[in-house]
């Protein structure tokens, strides 16, 4: 064994040790990078999963129930979402989905409310009113919701039809959120005899039927009907056309008479609505004469 061989062996051992250390350091660094990536990726997934779960739970709790906790007096349907107008035993049923803030509903009402009120008073139809409130989603403001609540309050007081007619005759332009102002709604209520009472004002001001309004809207969301006004006669869409025929006040009366042929007319006033001074109600307070 000579000196040269020993030194050779030594050098080799040193190099091996250096390589091993180097490899170890690289392995450590790679492991550390992997760990950091795992931490970042894991945190991302944790945050996203937590957000999704929170969203489902929180938003579900924040949602208004589909069945309202309180509904206005006299409402019908399995969840009390419908306001009936006219004789309950009338042979034909007119179903109307309307948003107080919807301009097309305003022009429909200005053209047809007198005829519809008359058909109701003759016991020929009863109307099922669905007060929708979705314009607020598209146009800033809360006129749909507060207007719908005020209509619910009027129903509670037995003056739905008259107040409904007054509201539509005084409808502001869609972009004008006048109905979002409760004072405007209360002031319009003065046009209906006996409606503007402290009870009605409190109902409007405290948004008493806000939950009911939301339930009605959710019902509309699921109804498959997409716009307002949606008008059905005995379940058949008649607005803007019934088959090939354009709806007009005369046609509406004609269609109702045809549907009622040979049937017993209903007893008017059985829904406790006051007789209508509607056709004569003043339009002086209209905040926007150009509405519609």
């Amino acid at each position, binding site marked *: 064994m000579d000196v040269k061989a020993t030194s050779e062996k030594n050098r080799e051992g040193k190099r091996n040790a250096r390589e091993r250390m180097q490899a170890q350091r690289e392995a450590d660094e790679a492991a550390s990078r992997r760990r950091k990536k795992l931490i970042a990726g894991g945190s991302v997934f944790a945050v996203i999963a937590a957000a999704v779960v929170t969203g489902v739970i*929180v938003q579900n709790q924040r949602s208004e129930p589909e069945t309202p906790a309180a509904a206005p007096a006299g409402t019908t349907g399995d969840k009390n979402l419908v306001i009936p107008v006219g004789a309950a035993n009338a042979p034909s049923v007119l179903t109307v989905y309307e948003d107080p803030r919807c301009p097309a509903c305003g022009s429909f009402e200005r053209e047809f409310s007198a005829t519809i009120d008359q058909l109701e008073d003759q016991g020929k139809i009863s109307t099922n009113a669905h007060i929708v409130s979705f314009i607020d989603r598209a146009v800033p403001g809360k006129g749909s919701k507060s207007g719908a609540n005020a209509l619910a309050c009027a129903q509670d007081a037995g003056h739905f039809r008259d107040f409904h007619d007054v509201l539509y005759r005084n409808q502001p332009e869609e972009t004008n959120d006048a109905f979002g102002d409760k004072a405007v709604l209360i002031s319009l209520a003065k046009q209906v005899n006996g409606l503007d009472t402290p009870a009605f004002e409190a109902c409007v001001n405290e948004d008493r039927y806000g939950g009911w309004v939301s339930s009605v809207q959710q019902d509309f969301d699921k109804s498959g009907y997409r716009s307002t006004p949606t008008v059905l006669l005995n379940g058949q869409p008649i607005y803007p056309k019934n088959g090939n025929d354009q709806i007009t006040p005369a046609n509406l009366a004609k269609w109702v008479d045809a549907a009622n042929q040979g049937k017993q007319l209903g007893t008017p006033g059985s829904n406790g609505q006051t007789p209508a001074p509607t056709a004569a109600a003043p339009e002086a307070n209209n905040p926007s004469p150009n509405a519609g």
Partner: protein
Amino acid sequence: MAGPAAPPGDCVPTPAARRTVPAWTQPLGTAVRLGLAVVWGWAGLAKIADPAEAAQAVRAYELLPEALVKPVGHALPFLELALALLLVIGLGVRLVAGVSTLLLLTFVAGIGSAWARGISIDCGCFGGGGHVDASQTEYLQEILRDTGFLLLAGWLLWRPRTKFSADGWLAG
């Protein structure tokens, strides 16, 4: 440790052979990251206030069964806010950019399918949503807008390293 003493054969390639990335991409990436964060934050906040409205915006696409409409409508704004938060702090940017890309592609596909089927809806991208008059649909604008957002997400997929990010801090 080895320093200049290391013999030529002992030379180790720089870790993972990182390609050099131009220095200016990092500040630009930060701007892109924050821009996308604003988009998600805005979209999430706009949808969060009214759960019923968010659900209806989803329902109007007529793509999901009723049982999924509410969970999706309710979770989506929170998911968007989570993405915004992660982008602001810059954690897992490439992964978040990937999720953003998937989500945006889903949105574009949804809008495109509504357009193709002739359904008249507002995309509900930033609140609102649901059925609108056929004359009021804005499918092309909505898709172009989302494509712009896709470009932001795509940039971050490609160059996820940005200044002032938790990723940078983690990587030391």
